[in-house]
């Protein structure tokens, strides 16, 4: 314990000021990731369902959107939206500018569009993997397309898609570190500030690396709990 305390005794880096800086970075990261995932999921759910439509005028545009956002780096998307929206003629006079002039919102838009594209693909995959027999059974019961989707396809797609979605959530947490590039002080941004202030790369970056690691483990644990819960019926009888 003595040795442990002496570790903290002569450190000038982790003082209340820097710890508060890290804390506000932590809050920003959580806000960004949580909001992008929730909004992204709300957008992706209808897109994922429509992507399985047989009408090319519906599924092709969605395919193009997904292909673009999955095939290009998030950093490029962020630059496009961050620098791009500012250059649209006349936007600086509209009410949108109040939102877009802050770095947080262009960044949120880029993250939402990115995660929505990946999630759309996950939902499409999960819907298309529905066993044919389940759909035939639903048809035999006289369910219409809506009821089939709501009662049969989506609940079982949720179970199939969850492991991939868990990966997407973790990916989004890690990708959110890019926000620090456009002047947002998230966890990584806070570490960069503290590195610049004290010229202490190990303390600054290892500390946030440890926080990200804990967050990742917490997410993995949570999703495992959810999976165990909704997959309970597939567990062997012990």
């Amino acid at each position: 314990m003595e040795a442990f305390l002496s570790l903290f005794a002569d450190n000038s880096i982790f003082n209340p000021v820097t710890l508060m800086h890290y804390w506000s970075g932590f809050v920003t990261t959580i806000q960004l990731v949580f909001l992008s995932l929730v909004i992204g999921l709300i957008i992706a759910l209808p897109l994922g369902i429509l992507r399985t439509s047989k009408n090319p005028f519906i599924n092709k545009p969605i395919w193009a959107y997904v292909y673009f956002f999955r095939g290009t780096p998030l950093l490029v998307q962020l630059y496009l939206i961050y620098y791009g929206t500012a250059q649209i003629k006349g936007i600086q006079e509209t009410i949108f500018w109040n939102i877009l002039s802050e770095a947080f919102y262009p960044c949120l838009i880029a993250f939402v569009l990115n995660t929505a594209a990946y999630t759309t693909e996950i939902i499409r995959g999960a819907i298309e993997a529905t066993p044919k027999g389940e759909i035939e059974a639903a048809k035999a019961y006289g369910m219409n397309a809506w009821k089939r989707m709501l009662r049969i396809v989506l609940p079982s797609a949720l179970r199939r898609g969850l492991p991939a979605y868990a990966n997407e959530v973790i990916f989004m947490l890690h990708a959110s570190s890019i926000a620090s590039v456009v002047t947002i002080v998230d966890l990584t941004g806070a570490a960069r500030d503290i590195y610049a202030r004290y010229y202490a790369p190990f303390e600054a970056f290892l500390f946030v690396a440890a926080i990200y690691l804990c967050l990742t483990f917490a997410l993995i644990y949570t999703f495992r709990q959810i999976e165990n819960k909704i997959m309970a019926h597939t567990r062997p009888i012990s």
Partner: protein
Amino acid sequence: MLDLHGYGPSIFEGAILTVQVAVLSLLIALILGLAGAIAKQSANPVPRIIATIYTTVIRGVPDLVLMLLIFFGGQMLMNMFSDWLYDQFAWDIFFNINEFIAGVVTIGFIFGAYMAETFRGAFQSVNRGQLEAGYAYGMSKRQVFIKISFPQMMRHALPGLGNNWLVMLKTTALVSIIGLADMVRLASEAAKAVHEPFTFLIPVALAYLFLTAVSEWILKRLEVKYSAGVARG
């Protein structure tokens, strides 16, 4: 026609740099991944634990944080090392961690962890009976690895390797943050200079889509090659 205000050639050079970073990192990642996968199957707990810590920690931390850590921290370590050399032996050497090395090493190091998981899964899907047959023929451990498990493992590993490669190609964009003049950095600087972000960033996005499409085509051919001799329905 697209007017790049004379920045075209330099952005094209940036694109070549992107490909160089990606290919070199791939080499490092493949070597580390293979070593990691072999260590994970080792009977000796020491390499097994080291490999498990490596894959778990690396996959739990954002790429950008690791890159900043290696770029800034690596330089500091090297400075300490050269100070030490000077004090001990009066050697005056300066090691410079440039952006290129830091970028390639970091990306290779990160994706080595993902590759290790891919290879581990692939090794496990090679039929055990085949390895036993190899031993029964009197092959050594080395021979079984080179002649039996490696070629068959590649078939199972290819889809995963392909995915890792596509993710890695996009991750190379991060090297622009530590100052390497890849196509993202050159394009964003040009965009800021001329105030036309779409003119420069859309072609860069299309370049990534093109690289992705080419990679997918090559991967498909490789998959055909490595699944020769497997019956397909």
